[in-house]
């Protein structure tokens, strides 16, 4: 027997018939609305992973989240959590303020590459250096999507953007910033990892990283960051499938994926995760 009737997404399925079981449905913390993100945008995948992890760990009800400036400024419309909107780049400082006055909250910051690695570089370094017990999700798609596709600090050498129309030239625009490796040098950082949403296998590994980063906070170990390599099909001038292929084939040469640091494990076990 087929599942009974039409099933609106986001609601519990009416008494599951004996013939079928649910393998996957959208997490409850993901709002039941259509997002403004472009077709194939990685934010949708990452929001979903975050919602799944928060639901699986039972953290959503005590989460206070900080939204960035960037395409994901609307994260508060898509994730059913208490949210505060931070000025551009300031999310780690805003999260620090929340963390210090709400010891029982689960504190989450969600940032893009401009937010974290350009205008907010001081804030992320110092929140990490203080070992603030927050979990920072850093979405790196190597471009400024919201403002129309300009260069980001993480744009690859040679990559064309609207502000590097002939391709990023190191002599003029510097090198892609390995901010997560830099943060991993700091004693206050308990977990630093880089994932990717290029295909289901990598997505699965990224979800495990996000889960671990949340557990690190829940265990009171210190600052946790997961950088997620993501796509911007419109900004990159590609179809979503082309963008996913580019993400899998080209980006990791500059930004290798894997667990960079996990102080809860031995160094050899951390390397084995790569």
């Amino acid at each position, binding site marked *: 027997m087929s599942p009974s009737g*039409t*099933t609106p997404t986001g609601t519990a399925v009416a008494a599951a018939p004996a013939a079928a079981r649910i393998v996957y449905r959208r997490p409850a913390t993901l709002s039941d609305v259509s997002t403004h993100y472009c077709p*194939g945008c990685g934010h949708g*995948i990452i929001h979903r992973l975050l919602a799944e992890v928060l639901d699986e760990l039972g953290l959503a009800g005590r989460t206070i989240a900080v939204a960035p400036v960037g395409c994901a400024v609307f994260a508060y419309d898509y994730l059913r959590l208490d949210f505060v909107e931070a000025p551009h780049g300031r999310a780690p400082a805003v999260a620090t303020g929340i963390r210090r006055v709400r010891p029982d909250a689960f504190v989450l910051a969600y940032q893009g590459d401009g937010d974290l690695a350009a205008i907010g570089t001081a804030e992320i370094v110092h929140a990490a250096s203080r070992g603030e017990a927050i979990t920072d999700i850093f979405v790196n798609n190597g471009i400024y999507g919201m403002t129309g596709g300009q260069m980001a600090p993480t744009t690859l050498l040679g990559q064309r953007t609207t502000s590097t129309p002939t391709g990023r030239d190191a002599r003029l625009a510097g090198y892609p910033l390995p901010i997560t490796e830099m943060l991993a040098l700091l004693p206050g950082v308990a977990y630093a990892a880089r994932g990717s949403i290029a295909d289901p296998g990598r997505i699965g590994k990224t979800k495990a990283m996000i889960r671990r980063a949340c557990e690190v906070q829940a265990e009171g170990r210190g600052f946790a960051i997961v950088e997620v390599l993501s796509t911007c099909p419109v900004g990159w001038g590609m179809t979503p499938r082309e963008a996913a292929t580019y993400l899998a084939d080209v980006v990791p040469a500059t930004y290798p994926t894997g667990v960079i640091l996990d102080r809860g494990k031995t160094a050899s076990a951390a390397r084995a995760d790569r």
Partner: protein
Amino acid sequence: MVVAATAPPKRVDAPGIADTFHPLDIAIDRCKGCELCVDACPKAVLALDLTIVNRLGHHPIRLTDAAACTSCALCARICPDAVFTVYARARKP
């Protein structure tokens, strides 16, 4: 900016199937036609339905062969818009 679906999403019926088990519920009003699931599906049974344009202006995804679907849920794992609800046949005792 939020575009809410105002009606329950329609289900997809694969043509010519005697077995009435449906492995996928697809919220076709939320699909943006990005086709990431097309590449993710190991059985290649997902394709855009070019006969439909949904309220977002996209051709939504369609399950072309329900019998071939193994309920692996890789489509659901990659979908940026969480349009899939995946069912598996109950395990036989």
